[in-house]
């Protein structure tokens, strides 16, 4: 063992192998990029409104309480399928009204219940956020989550 695997051989295996795996990874990433744009997120067009909604999502740091497609903080419910859960995944007006009413009702102030902060979001931004969440809901996520509970 000691004679076969010398330090310089170990080093060469490390460099050569790493380059190989990096190249494979780059190729798969490029293919995945293509797949996301043309297949998994292609069912609903990516409009300017949705990009604006993503900005609203980010500006308010929603990810640090909620998960979105299972990623984020685990303090508050999954929102990747929230529009399905609310039954408004294909209803833009209903999605806006439900989301607006929900956010306006926060924080609930109920003792012993987790509190969502108060967010000042104007109508245009609120509609954009609703559309962003509807758009995310339409992404092909390989069947995840297992059920509507998220």
């Amino acid at each position, binding site marked *: 063992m000691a004679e076969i695997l010398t*330090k310089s051989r*170990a*080093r060469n*295996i*490390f460099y050569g*192998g*790493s380059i190989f*795996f*990096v190249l*494979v*990874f780059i190729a*798969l*990433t490029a*293919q*995945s*990029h293509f*797949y*996301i*744009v043309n297949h*998994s*997120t292609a069912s609903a067009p*990516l409009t300017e409104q*949705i*990009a604006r909604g*993503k900005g609203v*999502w*980010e*500006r*308010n*740091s*929603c*990810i*640090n*309480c909620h998960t979105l*497609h*299972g*990623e984020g*903080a*685990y*303090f*508050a*419910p*999954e929102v990747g399928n929230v529009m399905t859960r609310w039954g408004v995944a294909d209803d833009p007006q209903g999605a806006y009204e439900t989301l607006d009413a929900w956010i306006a009702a926060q*924080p609930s*102030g109920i003792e*012993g219940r*987790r*509190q969502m*902060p108060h967010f000042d979001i104007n109508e245009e931004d609120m509609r954009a956020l609703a559309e*962003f969440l509807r758009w*995310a809901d339409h992404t092909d*996520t*390989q*069947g*995840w*989550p*297992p059920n*509507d*509970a*998220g």
Partner: protein
Amino acid sequence: MKYQSQSVAKAYFYCAMLLFGVQVLGGLLAGWIYVSPNTLSEILPFNVIRMIHTNALIVWLLLGFFGAAYFLVPEESEREIFSVKLAYLQLAILMIGTLGAVGSYLVGIHGGREFLEQPLWVKFGILVAAVIFLINISLTVLAGRKTAITNVLLMGLWLLCLLWIFAFINPDNLSLDKMYWWMVVHLWVEATWELVMAAILGFLMLKLTGVDREVVEKWLYVIVATALFSGILGTGHHFYWIGTPGYWQWVGSIFSTFEVIPFFLMMSFAFVMVWKGRKNHPNKAALLWSLGSSTVAFFGAGVWGFLHTLHGVNFYSHGTQITAAHGHLAFYGAYVALNLAVFTYAMPMLRGRDPYNQVLNMGAFWLMTGGMAFMTFVLTFAGTIQTHMQRVVGDYYMDVQDSLSIFYLMRFGAGAAVVLGALLFIYSLVVVRRREVIAPGPATPVAGE
């Protein structure tokens, strides 16, 4: 301390420990909000506290890595650091950026990609600091003796700085955003940081055990080879459910299963070196942290990672408290404990005193490690129940959370132990006597040794 410029590391370690304190106190507060959700809910909501908790962690670990590099590169390269002034400038930029980020989080200015919430100017500051660091450390290494430890360390640090570029790439398409976000997040903690970890561990083993350099360096290359061979395609375990193609379920499952290997090797390496080593190094606390780090990293990153990495399991466990359990123990073992090992090893030299009050430091190790282990267990139980109730039965999120409250209470207790341990650790390094409290007993060699 052989080289004057190594003392730069002291400033890095002090700043790191300051942010370490901020991080654990933020974590304790967040843990308390799980127990008593109305706490501060109007003035300091959970999402802001969590940003401070995670960002402070990332920055202090990086400061620790940079400080460790400034400490060990002069010894390995056998020369002074290229520029001490640049090293302090880099530290100043990082601290201003970090404090600026924390301040802007408190007034509600932040981005919204998890862990990358820093305002744009802070991101640029980090980029500038990274460039300064790479120039400074590379010129030092290139001019001096080249060793496997500096090779691997530099490669890890270069790649992690280059990957920071992805922090600036934020496509409007959420699935693309997520895919490129992992290029920073996963390829840091499960690839490039592992190179840094292995290099630092190799250096510590070399110094603490006195094993032949040739042996240490061969192990090092084998470890980092297994880390990158598994870790790069192991990124696939984050690409199961975010809109990426289905083949990642197999690529991710297979390669991330292999991600256990480098952590197993690092643990074996540390123990084998200590057994083989003839040196009886006086800094027992540094040895304890080194062995502890590699062991807890194996369990936290290796075992707890494997627990939910297969796509058939992850379909149900994704984004539950199982993930939180794994994340906490993996970060603690692999990166927190390793940094604390370096601080413990280097501080006595940097401050020119005996390897000091070790009992307190070792007590802090057991308190923190015990606390983290307990936290991991209770979160794993909570996550198991959550997975069943929410993902299998289909109960709603908040109903499930209400039934987990006992685990969150126990998690808070575990967190309190960790905070106490962290404060004791900082005290044992920063405020400590020059001489040992108890005089060492007579050296009586065991017959046959």
